[in-house]
């Protein structure tokens, strides 16, 4: 038996908005200290899974435990354990980079001196020291995403959700972000990431789940999945299993899969 419980455990997760089924019975298990990638096109249900696991929305059916806490009944425990960086930057553009990180430190109830030190340390780590006292509105897309992640890490979460963390970023910013994820891993953090990019899943994830129309159509290590379909790449696997490619038209990148 494993020493530790899985960081994320999901069974039979279901969610529908009206007649539209978004999640049709999803099972997942993510061991602590690993990276799990949910790969799928827009509308597959990736963001909905993240929203349910991060307590932003509730499932219609099924069970989910995050860091040992039930997402439905122990949402405060979940919130104390997680950090979330979404596709849309969750930063305050009227504040400076430093003020944004300090805001998180204050909300984490860090003592004043420690809060200031933690902010400086994170800004340094994410290459934002020079821009720290500029308003976040002036930051580039890549800088905003890094600031977003720095804010997520203030509280040293054991588990991080990254919802399409590199969507809309240029290749260099994307590689920077990958490097940050790898560093987090060496600190024992568990990461659940969603992506439309096969390369991203291949590069970062220990295990990959292929999500299509609210169902997990295949799951395994990148190598296992490639062997499964006898393909060269995850793209071949996705095509073989679902009949359509995972990556949608890049011009659709801004489409959102969730409904209010």
């Amino acid at each position: 038996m494993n020493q530790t419980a899985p960081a994320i455990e999901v069974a039979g997760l279901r969610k529908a908005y009206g007649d539209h089924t978004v999640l049709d019975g999803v099972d997942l298990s993510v061991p602590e200290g690993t990276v799990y990638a949910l790969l799928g096109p827009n509308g597959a249900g990736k963001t909905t899974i993240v929203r349910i696991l991060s307590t932003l929305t509730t499932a219609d059916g099924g069970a989910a435990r995050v860091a040992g806490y039930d997402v439905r009944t122990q949402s405060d425990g979940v919130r104390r354990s997680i950090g979330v960086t979404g596709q849309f930057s969750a930063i305050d553009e009227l504040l400076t980079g430093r003020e944004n990180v300090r805001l998180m430190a204050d909300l984490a109830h860090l003592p004043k001196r420690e809060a200031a030190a933690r902010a400086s340390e994170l800004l340094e780590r994410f290459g934002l020291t020079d821009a720290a006292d500029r308003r976040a509105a002036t930051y580039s897309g890549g800088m905003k995403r890094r600031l977003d992640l720095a804010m997520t890490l203030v509280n040293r979460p054991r588990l991080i959700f990254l919802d399409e963390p590199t969507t809309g970023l240029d290749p260099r910013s994307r590689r920077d972000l990958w490097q940050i994820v790898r560093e987090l891993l060496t600190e024992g953090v568990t990461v659940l990431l969603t992506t439309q990019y096969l390369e991203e899943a291949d590069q970062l994830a220990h295990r990959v789940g292929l999500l299509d129309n609210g169902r997990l159509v295949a799951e395994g290590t990148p190598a296992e999945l490639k062997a499964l379909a006898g393909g060269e790449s995850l793209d071949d696997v996705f095509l073989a299993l679902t009949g359509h490619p995972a990556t949608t038209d890049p011009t659709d990148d801004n489409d959102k899969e969730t409904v209010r």
Partner: protein
Amino acid sequence: MTTLALTARDSVTMLRRNLKHMVRYPSLTIMLIAQPVLFLLLFVYVFGGTMGAGLPGGGGRDDYLAYVAPAILLVTVCSVALSIAIYAAKDATEGIIDRFRTMPIAKSSVLTGLVLAALVQTALALTVVLVIAVALGWRPDAGPVGWLGAIGVLALLAIALTWLCVALGLAADSVETASNSPMFLVLLPFISSAFVPTDSMSTGLAWVAENQPFTPIIDTLRACFEGRAPGADLAWAIGWCVLITVLSFAWACRLFARAQAR
């Protein structure tokens, strides 16, 4: 720390954040203080002579200043509240609200911080308008009780309208909508006893004016500043403010729980 102490601490953090917004976005702050000041100048120096003559018992520009100054204070409260809808919508339409909702913080602090910042700004705006009205020659007859009463009613009104505008801002699907949907707060004082006595209006409109929330509120303010007892108007004013606060607070909390970045 107790839950209450944590809620207070988080609310103060959010208050600081919102006050920074108001300093960093000075054009909005200036605009919403300038609007009631312009109203005051317009109503006293352009309409004041004629309007004063129409007051019960007749009068001049100075009499109209005394009549309209409390109304301008009410318009000031409305003006600041309008901007709060914009701030609330800005938070709701940007991803940061989702971040707050995934954090182990006192949930109410996000909205409470915004309301507290609005009250600070309202106090500032009211002071500016009051100083200008006095500079124009307004001399309220209120004693200490009158002043306390007026400040109390203005505070209750500010709390009520701010919560209403927080809810309207959260309900709006964009910042643009949020800047328009509370506009009725600019219009509604005109159909009340704020600028002219209600019995000078046409019959149907006079009925509306006499029965809408702003009329007892403005009549209470006027009584306080004139050193009279407000009578039943005071109970109506408090009742309306409490009702609007309770309904808006419940609505805002419901919207906040369901809000998501768009």
